[in-house]
């Protein structure tokens, strides 16, 4: 079991500023909990699901790399997953203010055996990796831990 990398310090005052930016965008949507609480709850959920997040992140990273090289064409990965990439023009800044500008791109993945599908954006992957942020309930790009677990059959 690996914990999430670079998790923010509890009740870091900067989180209040970040939370404000997240609420102006579509990152928290109908989330009632504070950002700090949400980060804690999701970390606890990952622990209770006994998920190896380092494995999940390395898989998502690999999907991103392989899918982006397909330039929009579906790519088959070891007969286990099919991934494809959709990229629009423009960049989107990470709301954490860490100078990370993601391409406006989304990876679509399908587990060939189970038929389960997964969608994540390049920004979403970055926020998960660097900030332990899965996004709020109802947010269109939330990465739901339970769905990740079942997608990767963990």
């Amino acid at each position, binding site marked *: 079991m690996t914990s999430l990398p670079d998790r923010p310090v509890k009740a870091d005052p900067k989180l209040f500023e970040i939370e404000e930016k997240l609420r102006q*965008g579509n990152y928290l949507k109908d989330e009632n909990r504070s950002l700090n609480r949400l980060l804690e709850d999701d970390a606890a959920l990952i622990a209770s699901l006994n998920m190896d997040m380092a494995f999940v992140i390395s898989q998502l990273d690999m999907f991103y790399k392989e899918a982006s090289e397909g330039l929009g064409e579906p790519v088959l990965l070891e007969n286990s997953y099919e991934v494809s990439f959709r990229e629009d*023009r423009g960049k989107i*800044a990470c*709301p954490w203010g860490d100078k990370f*500008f993601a391409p406006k791109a989304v990876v679509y993945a399908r587990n060939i055996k189970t038929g389960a599908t997964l969608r994540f954006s390049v920004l979403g992957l970055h926020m998960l990796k660097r900030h332990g942020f899965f996004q709020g309930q109802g947010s*269109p790009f939330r990465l739901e831990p339970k769905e990740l677990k079942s997608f990767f059959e963990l």
Partner: protein
Amino acid sequence: MYLSYLLPPLAIAGLATALAIIILLAERYLMDYGEVELKVNDKLYKVKGGSTVLSTLKQEKIFIPSACGGRATCAYCKVTAVKGFGEVLPTEAPLLTKEDLTKNVRLACQIKVKNNCEIRIPDELFSIREFRARVDSITDLTYDIKHFIFRLLSPPEIEYKPGQYIQFQSQPYGDVSDSVYRAYSMCGLASERNQVELMVRLVPEGICTTYMFKHLKAGNEVIITGPYGDFYLRDSNRRMVCIAGGSGMAPIRAILLAMTPEEIERRRPIFFFGARSRKDLFLVDEWREFEARHPAFKFVPALSGPEPDDDWTGATGRITDVVAQFVPDAKDCEGYLCGSPGMLNACVEILCKLGVDEEQIYYDKFA
């Protein structure tokens, strides 16, 4: 236990936020900076002090690019601060590179005009205007690309170089409480100065495109600013290799439609349009007519994954392979590209391999 652990930091953070709000309110309502002088390049403006450079300049009808509405997240609004702005602010620092810091580049949406001060901006920004416009028509080009025509109300005309883009301001809708600003390339005839035409592709869950596709209706009023960008036709005798995918057709269309018959004869443009299957193709008939009118022009639509019932007899495969097949020697060519960053990289690479000088490959760098 849990609460007692959280309370002290929460209290400190809460206090800090409260203090920041008090300072902000005091500054807004109690501080009067009066009239100050703001020098922009060689021009001097007498302005009311106290607001950010971005909004002060907007009052003076100078529109600095902005995609985040001044929230210090897009980094589009960079200007050179010559004098009068003090230290870099914590809100700006994350978006400024080392090079920016050495060149005194700052975020116009964060720094404030409080005393006589001076900034430098690229000269092109003086010709940018804010337009009120009315939606004239919205037409489907494919299942996920629409053609928008906006009639300009005030000012009534826009002057731009074909290939340039505007920024469109969306309005709050549903549970999106914010306006956002997004760039869209103009795709119409630049000589029709009273209107702006766009080709917009729906981005699933995208804030602005969802607004434009689901909420914007003919007759609605909108705000656009522009023109922006340095993607336009360069003057030369070289053959033009144009490559686009999806809504990337927009600026290429504007460039080609604006060329005179003599220019087309001289530059012999070839336009590669990449799509996955037939359902992603559009305006094919228009380009075939253009071809018939201009024998020196060639249109090559190419499908990378045609469906069995597409009945496709045209070019197939990756757009880069199709380009290499049609233009094996591109030494005398110039490239005009528009599409996703991944497609741009692949096309730059293939054009260079085919002999095009990288300096002569043009595309929107901001994209």
